[in-house]
């Protein structure tokens, strides 16, 4: 009993740590966007961004959500700001659900699926879903007039009552405003955003504690009628980044798992987490959020069962198992794995350069935030003293211009910053999906490591490199698509075959008693397939010769 409990807790802690690492980059983006909304847009400006009270509010909210590179934890700070600005709950729901589902990086990743139109159908289905759920929630779920907007940490709460409908003065400008954004982000991280985010990642830990190692491997079979229903219960506490959800979708289609379960994983696994649900329950009341979540689950499950048969990819033989969901189960297989070295090794696998930079920034921000909270310092200290009554009424806070400085409207600056973020997303797409030659170079090293490890019997090493080869082959496919506008069916097919054989090799090396002959045969196969795949990109067929 003690052994079981120890494994559950230890495994849960490891998975929680992995989720924290995965969430840091997009949480930073979320904090930045929330700070921009707070200090560059007044409340009316924020409401305008999300469509105000018009019929556009729902589609506009999900459209903005799809442009921002945030996950379901990264949306939390933005939701707090939307709430402060009294954005309609339906629009908040649409934003909260759609922003983590798709972003430019993850949508492009969908190009590498064997049938990319499925991702477009999933995207269309998800957007229909968030619109319906948002509308139902606005119509039946929330009596917003009875819910008080929290004024916690508001730099302007002293005059909020008089500015419900009109723009509030954004009193801080220039360098002070940048400093105020930093203080605000730190305090939010050390306060409500940090707390709700921790609740969100704890969901993954809870799931890992409950589900034994590898127990979901055969739970989502194509012909298993219960697979979508099972996925509903698993995916609610799950926290998945958009890229993780998309790669799991890829694996599910590769293994011909249940398409309905894949849809549920995308919407509920990537779209919501315990933090989102908890925060909404606190803001809108348990009854209201109960209606929201029931409505969401009923519609998602209905769509999932409706598409479960029609979306089965033709000609793909279902695999009896998948490793796509191993990340949600306990990472510990044997009790002798419960060492600190094992935990550190597991975390090190997820601790790439992006995570290293993000965790350093986030940790610094959190330390600053804690100090500021302990000392009671907040961004209000940076608001300049009120002007005398002789100031111009057109400029109530009366900032003075110095030299070439010009006062630019906050909405203009805020809009520019948001556009900058979108531009940054595009740049990130090109950086994340590099050029063909760069990918070939990277894959050359990975391939050498993976195949020599498999041939020499160093299966742990092979297990580390095989998924990276798979990932880089996908990144190259998207990179070529981004730069040339097309991937030929032959290139796509060769990529499919390469990943199919990588998957087979991965399965072979994972057996307790790996079959050396089968591994050797697969290595030879992989080399041949890799040669054809490379040739498909280096010398694509042209009818003109």
């Amino acid at each position, binding site marked *: 009993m003690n052994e079981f409990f120890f494994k559950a807790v230890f495994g849960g802690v490891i998975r929680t740590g992995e989720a924290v690492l995965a969430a840091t980059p997009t949480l930073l983006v979320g904090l930045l966007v929330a700070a921009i909304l707070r200090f560059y847009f007044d409340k009316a400006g924020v409401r305008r961004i999300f469509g105000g009270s018009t019929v556009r509010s729902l589609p506009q909210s999900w459209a903005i959500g799809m442009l921002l590179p945030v996950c379901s934890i990264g949306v939390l700070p933005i939701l707090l700001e939307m709430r402060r600005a009294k954005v309609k709950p339906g629009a908040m729901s649409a934003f909260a659900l759609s922003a983590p589902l798709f972003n430019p990086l993850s949508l492009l990743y969908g190009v590498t699926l064997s049938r990319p139109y499925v991702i477009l159908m999933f995207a269309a289905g998800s957007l229909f879903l968030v619109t319906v759920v948002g509308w139902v929630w606005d119509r039946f779920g929330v009596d917003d007039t009875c819910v008080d907007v929290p004024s916690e940490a508001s730099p302007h709460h002293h005059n909020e009552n008089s500015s419900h409908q009109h723009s509030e003065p954004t009193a801080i400008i220039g360098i002070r405003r940048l400093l105020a954004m930093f203080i605000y982000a730190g305090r939010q991280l050390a306060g409500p955003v940090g707390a709700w985010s921790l609740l969100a990642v704890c969901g993954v830990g809870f799931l890992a504690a409950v589900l*034994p190692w590898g127990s979901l491997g055969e739970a989502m079979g194509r012909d298993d009628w219960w697979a979508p229903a099972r996925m509903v219960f698993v995916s609610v506490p799950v926290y998945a980044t958009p890229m993780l959800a998309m790669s799991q979708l890829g694996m599910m289609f590769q293994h011909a798992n249940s398409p309905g379960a894949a849809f549920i994983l995308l919407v509920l696994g990537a779209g919501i987490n315990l933090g989102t649900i908890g925060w909404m329950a606190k803001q809108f009341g348990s009854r209201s959020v109960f209606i929201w979540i029931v409505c969401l689950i009923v519609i998602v499950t209905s769509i999932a069962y409706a598409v479960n048969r029609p979306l089965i990819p033709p000609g793909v033989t279902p695999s009896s198992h998948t490793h796509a969901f191993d990340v949600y189960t306990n990472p510990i297989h044997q009790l002798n794995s419960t060492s600190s070295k094992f935990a550190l090794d597991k975390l090190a696998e997820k601790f790439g350069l992006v995570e290293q930079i993000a965790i350093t920034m986030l940790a610094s921000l959190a330390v600053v935030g804690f100090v500021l909270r302990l000392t009671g310092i907040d961004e209000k200290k940076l608001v300049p003293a009120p002007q005398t009554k002789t100031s111009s009424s057109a400029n109530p806070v009366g900032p003075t211009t110095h030299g070439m400085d010009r006062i630019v409207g906050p909405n203009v600056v805020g809009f520019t910053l948001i556009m900058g973020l979108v531009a940054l997303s595009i740049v990130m797409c090109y950086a994340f999906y590099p050029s063909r030659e760069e990918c070939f170079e990277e894959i050359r090293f990975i391939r050498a490591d993976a195949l020599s490890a498999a041939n020499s019997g160093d299966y742990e090493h092979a297990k580390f490199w095989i998924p990276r080869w798979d990932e880089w082959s996908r990144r190259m496919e998207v990179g070529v698509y981004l730069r040339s506008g097309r991937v030929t069916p032959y290139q796509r097919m060769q990529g499919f075959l390469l990943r199919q054989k990588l998957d087979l090799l991965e399965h072979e090396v994972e057996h307790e008693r790996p079959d050396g002959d089968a591994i050797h045969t697969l290595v030879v196969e992989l080399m041949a397939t890799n040669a054809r795949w490379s040739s498909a990109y280096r010398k694509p067929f042209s009818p003109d010769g």
Partner: protein
Amino acid sequence: MRHLLLVAYIACLGWASVGCSQQANQTATHDHHHETAPHMPSSLGDLCHKMRNRLKMINKRQTSPQLEAELTDLVSWAPEFAADTDIEESLWIPIYESSEQVRASIEKDANLWDQSRVENIAQLCQLSEDAWMTLDADERIDRYQPHSHHDHDHHDHDHTDHDHTDHDHTDHDHTDHDHTDHEHSEHDDGDHQPRDQMKR
């Protein structure tokens, strides 16, 4: 009410996890097997042979829903099997286009197996056979088929096609004997060799 819902959710999660855990031991030791369809061909040549045999059955009005489903699978697999050989891309493209065309037509109406569809499949078959024959004899090899790890005692990967309605063969060597395949074509046996025996 809130506590009741929480308890209900945990109970449901427990049900889901118990359902999953029943399979956990099997997965934990990777004691699973990779299922392959009984009519899964061993190579592009074998795929053409299987398509031809099923087309013959349809032409003789000896069709059945199972046979049509198998033929649909074979049509869908043609580009994949062709791409897994050393045939030129220029030869692969017509196979892909022809397969997509037939597949779209089957998706549109799965029950209409008229002469036009049969001819289209025959054309796909011809394209695949022509492409297969452009390969040298030592390039006409079987694809790797994942094998069951229940079967560690015998390491030969059974590249066979033996339906349960089949004869009582105990020797699963690289022959082709499903219920539609009594007439052995030129692709049988000597025309392709198993990947295991391949020397590179």
